[in-house]
Protein backbone atom coordinates (compact mmCIF):
# COMPACT_ATOMS: atom_id res chain seq x y z
CA UNK A 1 0.00 0.00 0.00
CA UNK A 2 1.82 3.08 -1.20
CA UNK A 3 1.64 6.20 -3.35
CA UNK A 4 4.14 6.74 -6.14
CA UNK A 5 4.98 10.37 -6.53
CA UNK A 6 7.94 12.02 -8.28
CA UNK A 7 9.72 8.68 -8.26
CA UNK A 8 9.35 8.30 -4.50
CA UNK A 9 7.29 5.66 -2.73
CA UNK A 10 5.17 6.84 0.18
CA UNK A 11 3.54 4.19 2.35
CA UNK A 12 -0.07 4.56 3.41
CA UNK A 13 -2.50 2.62 5.57
CA UNK A 14 -5.60 0.69 4.50
CA UNK A 15 -7.56 3.90 4.13
CA UNK A 16 -4.99 5.93 2.26
CA UNK A 17 -3.57 7.97 5.14
CA UNK A 18 0.20 8.25 4.79
CA UNK A 19 2.10 6.58 7.62
CA UNK A 20 5.25 8.73 7.56
CA UNK A 21 3.93 12.24 7.99
CA UNK A 22 7.25 13.81 7.03
CA UNK A 23 6.98 12.29 3.56
CA UNK A 24 4.21 14.71 2.61
CA UNK A 25 4.59 17.19 -0.22
CA UNK A 26 2.26 19.14 -2.46
CA UNK A 27 2.49 16.73 -5.35
CA UNK A 28 1.55 13.90 -3.04
CA UNK A 29 -1.40 15.92 -1.75
CA UNK A 30 -2.59 16.50 -5.29
CA UNK A 31 -2.26 12.79 -5.98
CA UNK A 32 -4.25 11.80 -2.88
CA UNK A 33 -6.86 14.41 -3.77
CA UNK A 34 -7.15 12.96 -7.24
CA UNK A 35 -7.85 9.52 -5.74
CA UNK A 36 -10.60 11.22 -3.77
CA UNK A 37 -12.00 12.85 -6.90
CA UNK A 38 -11.05 16.29 -5.72
CA UNK A 39 -9.54 18.85 -8.04
CA UNK A 40 -7.45 21.03 -5.77
CA UNK A 41 -8.09 24.76 -6.08
CA UNK A 42 -6.87 27.67 -3.94
CA UNK A 43 -9.53 27.16 -1.33
CA UNK A 44 -8.68 23.48 -0.94
CA UNK A 45 -5.06 24.45 -0.51
CA UNK A 46 -5.95 27.06 2.03
CA UNK A 47 -7.74 24.48 4.16
CA UNK A 48 -4.93 21.98 3.73
CA UNK A 49 -2.32 24.56 4.68
CA UNK A 50 -4.28 25.61 7.73
CA UNK A 51 -4.58 22.00 8.83
CA UNK A 52 -0.85 21.48 8.41
CA UNK A 53 0.02 24.65 10.32
CA UNK A 54 -2.36 23.70 13.10
CA UNK A 55 -0.97 20.21 13.21
CA UNK A 56 2.56 21.49 13.45
CA UNK A 57 1.58 23.54 16.48
CA UNK A 58 -0.67 21.02 18.23
CA UNK A 59 0.09 17.53 16.81
CA UNK A 60 -3.58 17.08 16.06
CA UNK A 61 -6.10 18.30 13.54
CA UNK A 62 -8.26 21.21 14.68
CA UNK A 63 -11.85 20.82 15.78
CA UNK A 64 -14.25 21.33 12.91
CA UNK A 65 -15.49 24.49 14.57
CA UNK A 66 -11.98 25.90 14.78
CA UNK A 67 -11.44 25.12 11.13
CA UNK A 68 -14.70 26.81 10.19
CA UNK A 69 -13.67 29.90 12.09
CA UNK A 70 -10.36 30.03 10.28
CA UNK A 71 -12.08 29.62 6.93
CA UNK A 72 -14.53 32.34 7.80
CA UNK A 73 -11.68 34.66 8.63
CA UNK A 74 -9.83 34.11 5.40
CA UNK A 75 -12.58 33.35 2.89
CA UNK A 76 -15.42 35.37 4.29
CA UNK A 77 -18.62 34.78 6.21
CA UNK A 78 -20.55 33.11 3.45
CA UNK A 79 -17.95 30.34 3.20
CA UNK A 80 -17.28 29.96 6.90
CA UNK A 81 -19.66 27.13 7.58
CA UNK A 82 -19.82 23.38 7.65
CA UNK A 83 -21.83 23.18 4.43
CA UNK A 84 -19.24 24.99 2.44
CA UNK A 85 -16.48 22.80 3.80
CA UNK A 86 -18.48 19.80 2.65
CA UNK A 87 -18.66 21.23 -0.86
CA UNK A 88 -14.86 21.43 -0.79
CA UNK A 89 -14.41 18.02 0.82
CA UNK A 90 -17.55 15.95 0.20
CA UNK A 91 -16.52 13.09 2.49
CA UNK A 92 -16.18 15.48 5.40
CA UNK A 93 -13.64 18.20 6.12
CA UNK A 94 -12.10 16.38 9.06
CA UNK A 95 -11.30 13.06 7.48
CA UNK A 96 -10.87 13.83 3.81
CA UNK A 97 -8.97 17.07 4.26
CA UNK A 98 -6.69 15.43 6.83
CA UNK A 99 -5.92 12.64 4.41
CA UNK A 100 -4.91 15.09 1.71
CA UNK A 101 -2.96 17.20 4.19
CA UNK A 102 -0.98 14.13 5.21
CA UNK A 103 -2.31 14.16 8.76
CA UNK A 104 -3.36 11.08 10.72
CA UNK A 105 -7.02 10.19 10.57
CA UNK A 106 -9.05 11.64 13.43
CA UNK A 107 -10.19 8.64 15.46
CA UNK A 108 -12.93 8.02 17.95
CA UNK A 109 -16.60 8.88 17.81
CA UNK A 110 -16.08 11.48 15.10
Amino acid sequence: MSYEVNGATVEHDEEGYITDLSAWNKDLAALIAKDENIDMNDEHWEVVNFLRDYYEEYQIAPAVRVLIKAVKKSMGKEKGNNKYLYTLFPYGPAKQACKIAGLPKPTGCV
Partner: protein
Amino acid sequence: MVELAIDNKISRTSIDDPTALPCMTPDAMVGSKPFLAAPDHNTKLGFPGELVDDWKEKAIARMGYLAETNKAFKVYLDTCVKCGACTDKCHYYMGSGDPKNMPVARQDLLRSVYRRYFTFAGKYFPKLVGAVDLTREVLDDWYSYYHQCSQCRRCSVFCPYGIDTAEISMAARDIMDHIGVGQKYCNEIIGKVMDVGNNLGLNAKALKATMEDLEEDLEDETGLEIRIPVDEHGADILLITPSADFFAEPHIDGLMGYAKVFHAAGASWTVSSYASEAANFGMFIGSEENTAVLCNRIRKAAEDLGVKRIIFGECGHAWRVAYNFLNTLAGPFDFLDQNYPIPQHILEYTWDLIERDQLTFDKSKNDEYRVTFHDSCNVSRASRMGDKPGGQFDIPRNVLKAVCNNYYDMPDETIREKTLCCGGGGGLLTDDLMDIRKKGSSPRMHALQQVERDFGVTHMVAICAICKTQFAKMMPEFGFDREAILSAHQLVSNAIVLEGQIDEDDDDDEDMEPEMNGASATGDGS
Protein backbone atom coordinates in the same frame (compact mmCIF):
# COMPACT_ATOMS: atom_id res chain seq x y z
CA MET B 1 -38.06 -16.71 -2.66
CA VAL B 2 -41.63 -17.53 -1.80
CA GLU B 3 -42.50 -16.39 1.68
CA LEU B 4 -44.51 -18.80 3.71
CA ALA B 5 -47.62 -17.84 5.60
CA ILE B 6 -47.67 -16.52 9.11
CA ASP B 7 -45.33 -13.92 10.40
CA ASN B 8 -42.92 -13.82 7.52
CA LYS B 9 -43.27 -10.07 7.55
CA ILE B 10 -42.12 -8.57 4.29
CA SER B 11 -41.12 -5.01 3.79
CA ARG B 12 -43.98 -2.87 2.54
CA THR B 13 -43.08 0.76 2.50
CA SER B 14 -40.56 1.34 5.18
CA ILE B 15 -41.79 4.77 6.17
CA ASP B 16 -45.08 3.19 7.19
CA ASP B 17 -43.38 0.37 9.03
CA PRO B 18 -39.83 1.23 10.07
CA THR B 19 -39.25 -2.21 11.58
CA ALA B 20 -40.45 -4.18 8.57
CA LEU B 21 -38.23 -7.04 7.46
CA PRO B 22 -36.55 -7.52 4.11
CA CYS B 23 -36.37 -10.80 2.24
CA MET B 24 -33.97 -13.18 3.92
CA THR B 25 -30.72 -13.20 1.94
CA PRO B 26 -28.12 -15.63 3.27
CA ASP B 27 -24.53 -14.35 3.26
CA ALA B 28 -25.61 -10.88 2.15
CA MET B 29 -23.11 -9.37 4.60
CA VAL B 30 -20.48 -12.09 4.77
CA GLY B 31 -17.96 -9.79 3.12
CA SER B 32 -18.32 -7.07 5.73
CA LYS B 33 -15.13 -7.08 7.77
CA PRO B 34 -13.42 -4.23 9.56
CA PHE B 35 -9.68 -3.68 9.23
CA LEU B 36 -7.50 -5.86 11.42
CA ALA B 37 -5.57 -4.19 14.19
CA ALA B 38 -1.85 -3.84 13.67
CA PRO B 39 0.37 -5.92 15.96
CA ASP B 40 1.33 -2.97 18.13
CA HIS B 41 -2.32 -2.03 18.63
CA ASN B 42 -2.92 -5.50 20.02
CA THR B 43 0.17 -5.93 22.16
CA LYS B 44 -0.43 -2.58 23.81
CA LEU B 45 -3.68 -3.99 25.19
CA GLY B 46 -2.03 -7.18 26.38
CA PHE B 47 -3.02 -9.35 23.42
CA PRO B 48 -0.86 -11.27 20.97
CA GLY B 49 0.10 -9.13 17.98
CA GLU B 50 -0.98 -11.54 15.29
CA LEU B 51 -2.92 -14.77 14.90
CA VAL B 52 -1.09 -17.26 17.11
CA ASP B 53 -0.14 -20.71 15.81
CA ASP B 54 -2.21 -22.65 18.32
CA TRP B 55 -5.18 -20.31 17.93
CA LYS B 56 -7.79 -23.05 18.07
CA GLU B 57 -6.64 -24.36 21.43
CA LYS B 58 -6.21 -20.83 22.76
CA ALA B 59 -9.65 -19.76 21.59
CA ILE B 60 -11.34 -22.79 23.10
CA ALA B 61 -9.43 -22.33 26.34
CA ARG B 62 -10.50 -18.68 26.52
CA MET B 63 -14.09 -19.69 25.82
CA GLY B 64 -13.94 -22.16 28.68
CA TYR B 65 -12.44 -19.53 30.94
CA LEU B 66 -15.23 -17.07 30.17
CA ALA B 67 -17.87 -19.74 30.76
CA GLU B 68 -16.38 -20.34 34.20
CA THR B 69 -16.03 -16.71 35.17
CA ASN B 70 -19.02 -15.00 33.60
CA LYS B 71 -22.48 -16.13 34.59
CA ALA B 72 -24.18 -14.27 31.76
CA PHE B 73 -22.01 -15.93 29.12
CA LYS B 74 -22.48 -19.40 30.58
CA VAL B 75 -26.22 -19.16 31.16
CA TYR B 76 -26.93 -17.52 27.80
CA LEU B 77 -25.06 -20.22 25.93
CA ASP B 78 -27.00 -22.98 27.68
CA THR B 79 -30.43 -21.45 27.87
CA CYS B 80 -31.52 -20.50 24.37
CA VAL B 81 -34.41 -22.62 23.08
CA LYS B 82 -34.39 -21.14 19.57
CA CYS B 83 -37.93 -19.86 19.98
CA GLY B 84 -37.36 -17.16 17.39
CA ALA B 85 -38.59 -14.23 19.49
CA CYS B 86 -35.46 -12.22 18.74
CA THR B 87 -35.17 -13.04 15.06
CA ASP B 88 -36.91 -9.92 13.78
CA LYS B 89 -35.56 -7.49 16.38
CA CYS B 90 -32.07 -6.55 15.18
CA HIS B 91 -31.73 -3.39 13.12
CA TYR B 92 -28.88 -4.99 11.18
CA TYR B 93 -31.16 -7.84 10.16
CA MET B 94 -33.94 -5.40 9.26
CA GLY B 95 -31.45 -3.51 7.15
CA SER B 96 -29.52 -6.35 5.55
CA GLY B 97 -31.71 -9.47 5.51
CA ASP B 98 -28.63 -11.56 6.27
CA PRO B 99 -29.93 -14.32 8.57
CA LYS B 100 -26.68 -14.34 10.54
CA ASN B 101 -27.69 -10.88 11.68
CA MET B 102 -30.65 -12.36 13.52
CA PRO B 103 -29.60 -12.22 17.19
CA VAL B 104 -29.96 -15.94 17.84
CA ALA B 105 -28.08 -16.82 14.66
CA ARG B 106 -25.33 -14.39 15.64
CA GLN B 107 -25.09 -16.07 19.05
CA ASP B 108 -25.13 -19.49 17.41
CA LEU B 109 -21.91 -18.74 15.57
CA LEU B 110 -20.27 -19.05 18.96
CA ARG B 111 -22.78 -21.31 20.68
CA SER B 112 -22.33 -24.06 18.11
CA VAL B 113 -18.60 -24.12 18.86
CA TYR B 114 -19.22 -24.02 22.61
CA ARG B 115 -21.55 -26.98 22.24
CA ARG B 116 -18.96 -28.93 20.30
CA TYR B 117 -16.25 -28.61 22.92
CA PHE B 118 -18.09 -28.11 26.20
CA THR B 119 -21.35 -30.06 26.13
CA PHE B 120 -22.12 -33.77 26.18
CA ALA B 121 -24.60 -33.55 23.31
CA GLY B 122 -22.24 -31.51 21.15
CA LYS B 123 -19.27 -33.79 21.80
CA TYR B 124 -21.10 -36.99 20.88
CA PHE B 125 -23.99 -35.87 18.66
CA PRO B 126 -22.74 -32.69 16.97
CA LYS B 127 -25.02 -32.91 13.92
CA LEU B 128 -28.09 -33.42 16.06
CA VAL B 129 -27.62 -30.26 18.09
CA GLY B 130 -25.94 -28.12 15.46
CA ALA B 131 -22.47 -28.20 17.02
CA VAL B 132 -19.49 -27.41 14.80
CA ASP B 133 -15.71 -27.58 15.00
CA LEU B 134 -13.77 -24.38 15.29
CA THR B 135 -12.31 -23.82 11.84
CA ARG B 136 -10.82 -20.93 9.94
CA GLU B 137 -14.21 -20.41 8.24
CA VAL B 138 -15.93 -20.20 11.61
CA LEU B 139 -13.36 -17.69 12.81
CA ASP B 140 -13.91 -15.61 9.68
CA ASP B 141 -17.65 -15.64 10.33
CA TRP B 142 -17.01 -14.54 13.92
CA TYR B 143 -14.87 -11.66 12.75
CA SER B 144 -17.44 -10.61 10.22
CA TYR B 145 -20.67 -10.96 12.17
CA TYR B 146 -19.49 -10.04 15.66
CA HIS B 147 -18.52 -6.75 14.06
CA GLN B 148 -22.08 -6.35 12.81
CA CYS B 149 -23.48 -6.15 16.33
CA SER B 150 -23.64 -2.78 18.04
CA GLN B 151 -24.23 -4.35 21.45
CA CYS B 152 -27.44 -2.36 21.70
CA ARG B 153 -29.39 -5.00 23.68
CA ARG B 154 -32.64 -4.59 21.77
CA CYS B 155 -32.87 -8.36 21.29
CA SER B 156 -32.44 -8.92 25.01
CA VAL B 157 -35.58 -6.95 25.82
CA PHE B 158 -37.64 -9.41 23.79
CA CYS B 159 -35.93 -12.64 24.86
CA PRO B 160 -37.95 -14.70 27.34
CA TYR B 161 -34.67 -15.45 29.16
CA GLY B 162 -33.11 -12.05 28.76
CA ILE B 163 -30.31 -13.47 26.65
CA ASP B 164 -28.17 -10.51 25.64
CA THR B 165 -26.35 -10.84 22.33
CA ALA B 166 -24.12 -7.97 23.43
CA GLU B 167 -22.58 -10.28 26.03
CA ILE B 168 -21.90 -12.92 23.40
CA SER B 169 -20.46 -10.35 20.98
CA MET B 170 -18.19 -8.95 23.64
CA ALA B 171 -17.03 -12.44 24.59
CA ALA B 172 -16.41 -13.31 20.95
CA ARG B 173 -14.29 -10.20 20.45
CA ASP B 174 -12.43 -10.96 23.66
CA ILE B 175 -11.70 -14.48 22.45
CA MET B 176 -10.52 -13.15 19.09
CA ASP B 177 -8.30 -10.56 20.77
CA HIS B 178 -6.75 -13.35 22.84
CA ILE B 179 -5.65 -15.18 19.70
CA GLY B 180 -4.32 -12.06 18.01
CA VAL B 181 -7.32 -11.10 15.89
CA GLY B 182 -8.16 -7.58 16.98
CA GLN B 183 -10.19 -4.88 15.29
CA LYS B 184 -8.18 -1.83 14.26
CA TYR B 185 -10.78 0.79 15.11
CA CYS B 186 -11.32 -0.26 18.73
CA ASN B 187 -7.86 -1.42 19.64
CA GLU B 188 -6.02 1.55 18.17
CA ILE B 189 -8.34 3.88 20.01
CA ILE B 190 -7.98 2.17 23.38
CA GLY B 191 -4.23 2.53 22.97
CA LYS B 192 -4.65 6.24 22.28
CA VAL B 193 -6.60 6.73 25.49
CA MET B 194 -3.80 5.02 27.37
CA ASP B 195 -1.22 7.30 25.73
CA VAL B 196 -2.98 10.62 25.42
CA GLY B 197 -6.17 10.40 27.46
CA ASN B 198 -8.81 10.28 24.77
CA ASN B 199 -9.98 8.54 21.61
CA LEU B 200 -8.96 11.43 19.39
CA GLY B 201 -5.40 11.71 20.55
CA LEU B 202 -6.06 15.29 21.61
CA ASN B 203 -3.18 16.36 23.84
CA ALA B 204 -3.40 18.78 26.76
CA LYS B 205 -2.04 21.73 24.82
CA ALA B 206 -4.49 21.26 21.96
CA LEU B 207 -7.35 20.65 24.37
CA LYS B 208 -6.64 23.90 26.21
CA ALA B 209 -6.34 25.84 22.98
CA THR B 210 -9.62 24.44 21.71
CA MET B 211 -11.42 25.24 24.94
CA GLU B 212 -10.06 28.80 24.90
CA ASP B 213 -11.36 29.09 21.40
CA LEU B 214 -14.79 27.98 22.53
CA GLU B 215 -14.70 30.40 25.44
CA GLU B 216 -14.08 33.18 22.92
CA ASP B 217 -17.07 32.02 20.90
CA LEU B 218 -19.22 31.94 24.01
CA GLU B 219 -18.16 35.45 24.91
CA ASP B 220 -18.84 36.68 21.38
CA GLU B 221 -22.27 35.15 21.57
CA THR B 222 -23.35 36.22 25.06
CA GLY B 223 -20.99 38.95 26.12
CA LEU B 224 -20.32 36.86 29.21
CA GLU B 225 -17.18 35.23 30.43
CA ILE B 226 -18.33 31.62 30.28
CA ARG B 227 -15.50 29.30 31.09
CA ILE B 228 -14.57 25.79 30.03
CA PRO B 229 -11.84 25.13 32.55
CA VAL B 230 -9.19 22.49 31.91
CA ASP B 231 -7.29 20.76 34.73
CA GLU B 232 -8.51 23.20 37.34
CA HIS B 233 -7.48 21.88 40.75
CA GLY B 234 -10.03 22.22 43.48
CA ALA B 235 -13.03 22.49 41.18
CA ASP B 236 -16.19 20.91 42.55
CA ILE B 237 -17.23 19.03 39.45
CA LEU B 238 -15.17 16.95 37.05
CA LEU B 239 -16.87 16.73 33.65
CA ILE B 240 -16.06 13.59 31.73
CA THR B 241 -17.33 13.88 28.21
CA PRO B 242 -16.60 12.11 24.92
CA SER B 243 -13.65 13.68 23.17
CA ALA B 244 -15.91 14.07 20.14
CA ASP B 245 -17.45 16.93 22.17
CA PHE B 246 -14.11 18.72 21.77
CA PHE B 247 -13.94 18.14 18.06
CA ALA B 248 -17.00 17.31 15.99
CA GLU B 249 -20.32 18.84 14.97
CA PRO B 250 -22.91 18.89 16.50
CA HIS B 251 -21.14 17.51 19.57
CA ILE B 252 -19.24 20.69 20.31
CA ASP B 253 -22.45 22.71 20.44
CA GLY B 254 -23.58 20.37 23.20
CA LEU B 255 -20.37 21.01 25.12
CA MET B 256 -21.00 24.75 24.89
CA GLY B 257 -24.47 24.02 26.25
CA TYR B 258 -22.99 22.24 29.28
CA ALA B 259 -20.75 25.25 29.85
CA LYS B 260 -23.71 27.61 29.82
CA VAL B 261 -25.64 25.43 32.25
CA PHE B 262 -22.69 25.27 34.64
CA HIS B 263 -22.29 29.02 34.27
CA ALA B 264 -25.96 29.61 35.03
CA ALA B 265 -25.75 27.39 38.09
CA GLY B 266 -22.61 29.16 39.26
CA ALA B 267 -20.88 25.81 39.44
CA SER B 268 -17.16 25.32 39.78
CA TRP B 269 -16.16 22.68 37.27
CA THR B 270 -13.38 21.41 35.08
CA VAL B 271 -12.50 18.93 32.40
CA SER B 272 -9.36 16.85 32.77
CA SER B 273 -6.69 16.46 30.13
CA TYR B 274 -5.66 13.15 31.68
CA ALA B 275 -9.17 11.67 31.56
CA SER B 276 -10.51 13.57 28.58
CA GLU B 277 -12.64 10.72 27.32
CA ALA B 278 -15.99 9.38 28.48
CA ALA B 279 -16.26 6.61 25.91
CA ASN B 280 -14.75 3.34 27.00
CA PHE B 281 -14.02 1.07 24.06
CA GLY B 282 -12.74 -1.57 26.48
CA MET B 283 -16.36 -2.62 26.81
CA PHE B 284 -16.80 -2.95 23.05
CA ILE B 285 -14.08 -5.56 22.92
CA GLY B 286 -15.37 -7.30 26.03
CA SER B 287 -12.13 -6.75 27.87
CA GLU B 288 -12.72 -6.19 31.54
CA GLU B 289 -9.03 -5.42 32.12
CA ASN B 290 -8.89 -2.71 29.50
CA THR B 291 -12.25 -1.30 30.55
CA ALA B 292 -10.90 -1.11 34.09
CA VAL B 293 -7.70 0.64 32.99
CA LEU B 294 -9.73 3.38 31.31
CA CYS B 295 -12.15 3.64 34.25
CA ASN B 296 -9.26 4.11 36.63
CA ARG B 297 -7.97 7.06 34.63
CA ILE B 298 -11.20 8.80 35.57
CA ARG B 299 -10.75 7.92 39.22
CA LYS B 300 -7.17 9.18 39.17
CA ALA B 301 -8.20 12.44 37.52
CA ALA B 302 -10.89 12.96 40.14
CA GLU B 303 -8.42 12.32 42.95
CA ASP B 304 -5.65 14.45 41.46
CA LEU B 305 -7.95 17.39 40.82
CA GLY B 306 -9.59 17.02 44.21
CA VAL B 307 -13.12 17.27 42.85
CA LYS B 308 -16.26 16.44 44.81
CA ARG B 309 -18.47 15.22 41.99
CA ILE B 310 -18.20 13.52 38.60
CA ILE B 311 -20.62 14.37 35.81
CA PHE B 312 -20.73 12.64 32.44
CA GLY B 313 -21.54 14.38 29.18
CA GLU B 314 -23.75 13.11 26.38
CA CYS B 315 -22.36 9.70 25.45
CA GLY B 316 -24.27 6.44 25.23
CA HIS B 317 -22.02 3.45 25.83
CA ALA B 318 -19.96 5.69 28.09
CA TRP B 319 -22.94 6.22 30.31
CA ARG B 320 -23.45 2.47 30.51
CA VAL B 321 -19.87 2.01 31.67
CA ALA B 322 -20.08 4.99 34.00
CA TYR B 323 -23.42 4.09 35.49
CA ASN B 324 -22.96 0.34 35.83
CA PHE B 325 -19.24 -0.47 35.78
CA LEU B 326 -17.31 2.51 37.15
CA ASN B 327 -18.20 1.80 40.76
CA THR B 328 -17.20 -1.85 40.39
CA LEU B 329 -14.01 -1.37 38.38
CA ALA B 330 -12.66 1.84 39.89
CA GLY B 331 -14.65 2.31 43.10
CA PRO B 332 -15.52 2.82 45.81
CA PHE B 333 -15.65 6.56 45.34
CA ASP B 334 -15.82 7.41 49.02
CA PHE B 335 -13.69 10.51 48.49
CA LEU B 336 -16.49 12.19 46.54
CA ASP B 337 -19.49 14.04 47.94
CA GLN B 338 -21.98 11.30 48.74
CA ASN B 339 -24.95 13.67 48.51
CA TYR B 340 -24.87 13.47 44.74
CA PRO B 341 -25.21 10.47 42.46
CA ILE B 342 -21.80 9.01 41.57
CA PRO B 343 -21.51 9.50 38.70
CA GLN B 344 -24.22 11.90 37.53
CA HIS B 345 -25.41 12.46 33.98
CA ILE B 346 -25.35 16.00 32.60
CA LEU B 347 -29.05 15.67 31.78
CA GLU B 348 -29.82 14.73 35.38
CA TYR B 349 -27.88 17.81 36.42
CA THR B 350 -29.67 20.11 33.99
CA TRP B 351 -33.09 18.65 34.73
CA ASP B 352 -32.53 19.04 38.45
CA LEU B 353 -31.76 22.73 37.91
CA ILE B 354 -34.87 23.10 35.76
CA GLU B 355 -37.02 21.42 38.38
CA ARG B 356 -35.65 23.74 41.03
CA ASP B 357 -36.38 26.70 38.77
CA GLN B 358 -32.75 27.69 38.53
CA LEU B 359 -32.65 28.10 34.76
CA THR B 360 -34.48 30.54 32.50
CA PHE B 361 -35.31 29.70 28.91
CA ASP B 362 -36.64 31.47 25.89
CA LYS B 363 -38.20 28.51 24.11
CA SER B 364 -38.95 30.54 21.00
CA LYS B 365 -35.22 30.50 20.24
CA ASN B 366 -35.76 26.90 19.15
CA ASP B 367 -38.90 27.56 17.14
CA GLU B 368 -37.09 26.88 13.90
CA TYR B 369 -36.75 23.27 15.00
CA ARG B 370 -39.48 20.66 15.15
CA VAL B 371 -37.66 17.97 17.06
CA THR B 372 -37.84 14.34 17.97
CA PHE B 373 -35.60 12.38 20.31
CA HIS B 374 -33.50 9.34 19.51
CA ASP B 375 -33.13 7.19 22.63
CA SER B 376 -29.54 5.99 22.58
CA CYS B 377 -29.43 2.23 22.93
CA ASN B 378 -27.08 1.89 25.87
CA VAL B 379 -28.62 4.73 27.82
CA SER B 380 -32.03 3.17 27.32
CA ARG B 381 -31.32 -0.47 28.03
CA ALA B 382 -28.18 -0.40 30.15
CA SER B 383 -28.50 2.53 32.51
CA ARG B 384 -30.83 4.89 34.23
CA MET B 385 -31.21 8.58 34.93
CA GLY B 386 -32.90 9.88 38.04
CA ASP B 387 -34.47 7.84 40.82
CA LYS B 388 -37.05 5.89 38.92
CA PRO B 389 -36.75 3.15 36.33
CA GLY B 390 -37.37 4.74 32.96
CA GLY B 391 -35.90 8.09 34.00
CA GLN B 392 -33.48 7.64 31.13
CA PHE B 393 -36.45 8.11 28.78
CA ASP B 394 -38.30 10.84 30.64
CA ILE B 395 -35.51 13.16 31.73
CA PRO B 396 -34.12 13.88 28.26
CA ARG B 397 -37.66 14.45 26.96
CA ASN B 398 -38.48 16.67 29.92
CA VAL B 399 -35.42 18.78 29.24
CA LEU B 400 -36.21 19.04 25.53
CA LYS B 401 -39.80 20.04 26.23
CA ALA B 402 -38.53 22.65 28.65
CA VAL B 403 -36.38 24.27 25.98
CA CYS B 404 -38.40 23.97 22.78
CA ASN B 405 -42.01 24.27 21.74
CA ASN B 406 -42.25 21.58 19.08
CA TYR B 407 -41.54 18.09 20.27
CA TYR B 408 -42.84 14.83 18.74
CA ASP B 409 -42.01 11.21 19.47
CA MET B 410 -41.21 8.63 16.83
CA PRO B 411 -43.33 5.41 16.61
CA ASP B 412 -43.63 3.41 19.84
CA GLU B 413 -41.84 0.31 18.62
CA THR B 414 -38.77 2.43 17.87
CA ILE B 415 -38.34 4.43 21.09
CA ARG B 416 -37.73 4.04 24.81
CA GLU B 417 -36.78 0.46 25.73
CA LYS B 418 -37.53 -0.65 22.17
CA THR B 419 -35.34 2.05 20.65
CA LEU B 420 -33.36 1.25 17.53
CA CYS B 421 -29.62 1.66 17.51
CA CYS B 422 -28.19 4.38 15.30
CA GLY B 423 -26.29 1.68 13.43
CA GLY B 424 -22.81 2.79 14.48
CA GLY B 425 -22.55 1.69 18.12
CA GLY B 426 -20.37 -0.93 19.74
CA GLY B 427 -17.21 -0.26 17.75
CA LEU B 428 -18.76 -0.07 14.30
CA LEU B 429 -18.43 3.68 13.79
CA THR B 430 -15.63 3.30 11.32
CA ASP B 431 -15.46 4.01 7.61
CA ASP B 432 -14.56 0.43 6.76
CA LEU B 433 -18.00 -0.66 8.00
CA MET B 434 -19.98 2.03 6.17
CA ASP B 435 -22.21 -0.46 4.35
CA ILE B 436 -23.50 -2.19 7.47
CA ARG B 437 -23.71 1.16 9.25
CA LYS B 438 -26.05 2.44 6.59
CA LYS B 439 -28.13 -0.72 6.59
CA GLY B 440 -28.32 -0.67 10.37
CA SER B 441 -29.43 2.93 10.48
CA SER B 442 -32.25 2.47 8.00
CA PRO B 443 -34.99 1.45 10.49
CA ARG B 444 -34.29 4.53 12.58
CA MET B 445 -34.12 6.77 9.54
CA HIS B 446 -37.43 5.40 8.30
CA ALA B 447 -38.97 6.14 11.69
CA LEU B 448 -37.66 9.68 11.37
CA GLN B 449 -39.10 9.95 7.87
CA GLN B 450 -42.43 8.90 9.31
CA VAL B 451 -42.55 11.75 11.85
CA GLU B 452 -41.25 14.13 9.23
CA ARG B 453 -44.21 13.21 7.07
CA ASP B 454 -46.78 13.12 9.87
CA PHE B 455 -45.67 15.99 12.10
CA GLY B 456 -43.24 17.97 10.02
CA VAL B 457 -40.32 17.04 12.24
CA THR B 458 -37.15 18.69 11.00
CA HIS B 459 -34.47 17.67 13.48
CA MET B 460 -33.55 14.72 15.64
CA VAL B 461 -31.81 15.09 18.99
CA ALA B 462 -29.32 12.53 20.30
CA ILE B 463 -27.37 12.21 23.53
CA CYS B 464 -24.51 10.04 22.35
CA ALA B 465 -21.35 10.96 20.49
CA ILE B 466 -21.61 7.88 18.30
CA CYS B 467 -25.26 8.51 17.44
CA LYS B 468 -24.49 12.12 16.52
CA THR B 469 -21.58 11.23 14.24
CA GLN B 470 -23.40 8.31 12.70
CA PHE B 471 -26.53 10.33 11.95
CA ALA B 472 -24.56 13.28 10.62
CA LYS B 473 -23.18 10.79 8.10
CA MET B 474 -26.49 9.01 7.44
CA MET B 475 -28.90 11.96 7.24
CA PRO B 476 -28.01 12.91 3.65
CA GLU B 477 -28.35 9.27 2.59
CA PHE B 478 -31.99 9.38 3.65
CA GLY B 479 -32.91 12.78 2.30
CA PHE B 480 -32.22 14.88 5.38
CA ASP B 481 -29.84 17.72 5.94
CA ARG B 482 -26.51 16.71 7.44
CA GLU B 483 -27.19 19.15 10.24
CA ALA B 484 -30.59 17.67 11.08
CA ILE B 485 -28.96 15.92 14.02
CA LEU B 486 -28.58 17.96 17.20
CA SER B 487 -27.10 17.61 20.65
CA ALA B 488 -29.59 17.85 23.49
CA HIS B 489 -27.56 20.57 25.17
CA GLN B 490 -27.32 22.42 21.90
CA LEU B 491 -31.05 23.15 22.22
CA VAL B 492 -30.51 23.97 25.89
CA SER B 493 -27.75 26.32 24.79
CA ASN B 494 -29.96 28.04 22.21
CA ALA B 495 -32.79 28.67 24.65
CA ILE B 496 -31.02 29.40 27.90
CA VAL B 497 -31.19 33.00 29.06
CA LEU B 498 -28.15 33.93 31.12
CA GLU B 499 -28.11 36.80 33.52
CA GLY B 500 -26.52 39.82 31.89
CA GLN B 501 -26.14 38.33 28.46
CA ILE B 502 -26.28 40.62 25.46
CA ASP B 503 -29.36 40.35 23.33
CA GLU B 504 -28.51 39.14 19.88
CA ASP B 505 -32.03 38.98 18.49
CA ASP B 506 -31.36 41.63 15.87
CA ASP B 507 -28.82 39.41 14.21
CA ASP B 508 -28.75 40.37 10.57
CA ASP B 509 -27.18 37.15 9.34
CA GLU B 510 -30.34 35.57 8.03
CA ASP B 511 -28.42 33.26 5.76
CA MET B 512 -26.19 31.83 8.47
CA GLU B 513 -26.56 28.35 9.85
CA PRO B 514 -28.36 28.35 13.19
CA GLU B 515 -25.25 26.98 14.88
CA MET B 516 -23.22 29.77 13.43
CA ASN B 517 -25.25 32.80 14.38
CA GLY B 518 -23.65 33.06 17.80
CA ALA B 519 -20.12 33.45 16.62
CA SER B 520 -21.01 36.13 14.14
CA ALA B 521 -23.15 38.21 16.45
CA THR B 522 -20.55 40.74 17.44
CA GLY B 523 -18.94 40.92 14.05
CA ASP B 524 -16.07 38.64 15.05
CA GLY B 525 -13.79 40.01 17.71
CA SER B 526 -10.99 37.54 17.11
